[in-house]
């Protein structure tokens, strides 16, 4: 069974971020990067499925040279091989463009299963995997919490809102995005680290894939640091009035109720 895990590299969680000169992305020079947290859970699920079904896990990562570190990490954690789609512009690409490039890069691989994490820690669209599936004409399911491989199909349990779950079967090949936090993330082992160097990493140039870059469906024009503001409201009146006012604010302004 051939399994792909779409794995993204994002800035580390406690990175001190600064905006770039054009104000449409962060200054990447002094930032450290790591594997996107959600994708760890996708990788964990991919490794589990592979273990139980004699599968092979391929890491698919798009981005500049720096993403090779994350690819090595994933290989040290147990993935079998990798495809690096070399693309200097990945950070500003929109999910559709990303998906077109990834789909073009992996279509000939004929993966039985493509997994991704839930969403990325930097842009958080949660769309790329699904879009890849659409482009490749594969069924897809998001927020998957359980999987079971059956003959030519996969049974999955999806987490819906309000404590509801959905059980659904998809014919293979299929694409799933995996819910975070349900298993331990896989750790690299020292043996895995030593072996990672010997595992094959295929290099694909994004520019050579013939994907038409039409500017994309989406463009990041401006990002900014949230403005800090502090506003204090004092409620007056008797207890009932105060409670009523408080509930109104929580419901309609803070929208937490």
């Amino acid at each position, binding site marked *: 069974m051939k399994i792909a895990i779409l794995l993204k590299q994002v800035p580390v969680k406690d990175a001190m971020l600064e905006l770039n000169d054009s104000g449409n992305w962060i200054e990447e020079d002094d930032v450290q990067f790591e594997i996107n947290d959600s994708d760890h859970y996708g990788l964990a699920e991919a490794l589990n499925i592979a273990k139980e079904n004699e599968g092979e896990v391929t890491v698919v990562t798009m981005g500049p040279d720096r993403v090779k570190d994350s690819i*090595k*990490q994933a290989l*040290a954690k147990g993935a079998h091989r990798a495809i690096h789609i070399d693309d200097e512009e990945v950070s500003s690409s929109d999910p559709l463009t990303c998906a077109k490039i990834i789909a073009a890069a992996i279509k000939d691989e004929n993966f039985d299963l493509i997994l991704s994490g839930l969403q990325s820690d930097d842009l958080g669209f949660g769309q790329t995997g699904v879009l890849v599936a659409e482009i490749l004409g594969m069924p897809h399911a998001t927020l998957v919490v359980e999987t079971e491989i059956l003959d030519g199909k996969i049974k999955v349990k999806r987490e819906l809102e309000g404590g509801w779950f959905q059980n659904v079967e998809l014919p293979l090949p299929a694409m799933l995005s995996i819910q975070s936090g349900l298993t*331990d*993330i896989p*750790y*690299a*082992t*020292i*043996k895995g*680290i*030593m072996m*990672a160097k010997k595992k094959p990493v295929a290099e694909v140039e994004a520019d050579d894939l013939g994907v038409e870059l039409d500017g994309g469906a989406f463009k990041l024009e401006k990002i900014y640091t949230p403005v800090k503001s502090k506003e204090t409201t004092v409620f007056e009146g008797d207890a009932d009035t105060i409670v009523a006012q408080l509930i109104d604010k929580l419901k309609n302004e803070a929208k937490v109720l």
Partner: protein
Amino acid sequence: MKNEKTESFLKSLFAGEIKQEIIFPFPQQDAEEQENLQMILQAWQEFARDHVDAVEIDKNAEIPEVVMQGMREIGLFGLPVSDEYDGAGVSKTSYCRVFEEICRYEAGIAVMFGAHASIGTNGIVLFGTEKQKAEYLPKLASGEYIAAFALTEPNAGSDAAGIQTKAVLNEKKTAFILNGSKIWISNGGIASIATVFAKTVVHREGEDKEKITAFIVDLNSPGVSRGKPEHKLGIRGSNTTSLNFDNVLVPVENVLGPMGKGFLVAMETLNTGRLGLAAGCIGGMKELLREATEHAKSREQFNKSLDQFELIKDKIARIASDIYATESIVYLTTGLHDKGGVDVSLESAICKIFGSEAVWNTADEVLQIAGGLGYSAEYPYERYLRDARIHRIFEGTNEILRMFVALSGIQGPGEYLKNVGKALRNPIKGFGLLTGFAAHKVKDSISMDHLKDVCPDLKSEAEQFDKLAARLAAITEKVLMKYGKKIILKQFILQRIANMAINLFGMAAVISRVDTRVKQDKSIEHDLPLAKLFCNMAASRVRREARYINRNHDKQRAQISTMICENNKYPIEMLLEK
């Protein structure tokens, strides 16, 4: 053990010779090793963030099985073992860097790991036969076996050569019968095997002599009993017990190293084991500094955050420069060890002394920055303080190690602590052991040696180093002339000489580190203020110690101590006197 270790930066320094070529340039790891190390560190960090709960470990005085299992799976127990025996086969430098990171998360885990890897396994790595290595190292590397190092006894702590545990060959000459007891054994309750040191009868020069021999002992053998875990001040996650041996049969194949050479096995194992401990102190300090900085930036008094006050700046700066210095001496020493051919026994001892005192001072000052919160068990500061305290005691107390540094330095190359120990136990007989120092020649101040071609940024620090190194050599010669062989017992003086050597080594390591960066066109923006602060504080400590060699109150110290001990208490009742 086959490597010829002849050169030593520090031993030469005592003779007034600055062997700059040994410590310049500062050792570097190659790119591949760095990359592997980075990934090993990350594997541990990801695991530790999820599974290491320092508060729980301290409270329950136990390392949870999930942590042990995770460390096994990652392969950490195999770090000191070569890949030939299923280990990771990493350098001492990488090993120490990982140890540092383990200690940053939890000191009890670090002590368990250090007792297993740094000293428990290290003896077999250094002295094991092929058969012993093949039998034990793969199991130690996988963590199936946990190892311990059993030297200390109720009547033999610092005086390790005075152990009373005995091993007697049985009639068939197939096994030794081991009897005796060991105390304060880290991993005593959880280890499968231990390196145990015992007195044996060895035939030498036509007569039978009692000499120490090292054994690999299966702790699940009949006759081995383990005491209850000690209730400790800190490093509570680590398991410390006594071990009792009652007619335990140890097969002759389990003799570790040559018969009668157990003391050498112990000292060599500890020499390199100490580096791990010192590296652990760096991890502790980094975590403490992070905690202190966070608190100092968020806590406001007099409408300013604490970090705006100079008294707090002073503490933060001194802690950071101590970290810089400890890193410099430890990774200089591990680098020299990895390169081989250099004797780093003194340097390793200094790393242990300096690191353990730096982490203790750091824990104390960080607790002070936190004020009342620091004293509360609701916050981590008091735990850090408790955990930090042990490092000055175990793997050779800092007092013993200071004597080791001073006396080995004075004696010159080739001599080991065993002679000092013997000399201390029997000063009259011991005179003969410290041979060679009468012929000790130091260069006079006119032909003073210099650090050459040091980057201009640290020119004045390098000049101070040159002058103070010459002073160390001059003082060494002077005290030898004044006290002769009696220097062995002049601990007030020896301590000052050791302190001079410790600080000078710190300066040399820091200067080498910065200079090497400059010559590699790397930025020293962060390094320079740390290096300058450390070097100047270290230099003033060296000057102070040198001053006290001649002008001191040692007589009063000795007199006061005698007076107190004779009275068994403080002898003055101030308010009751008429």
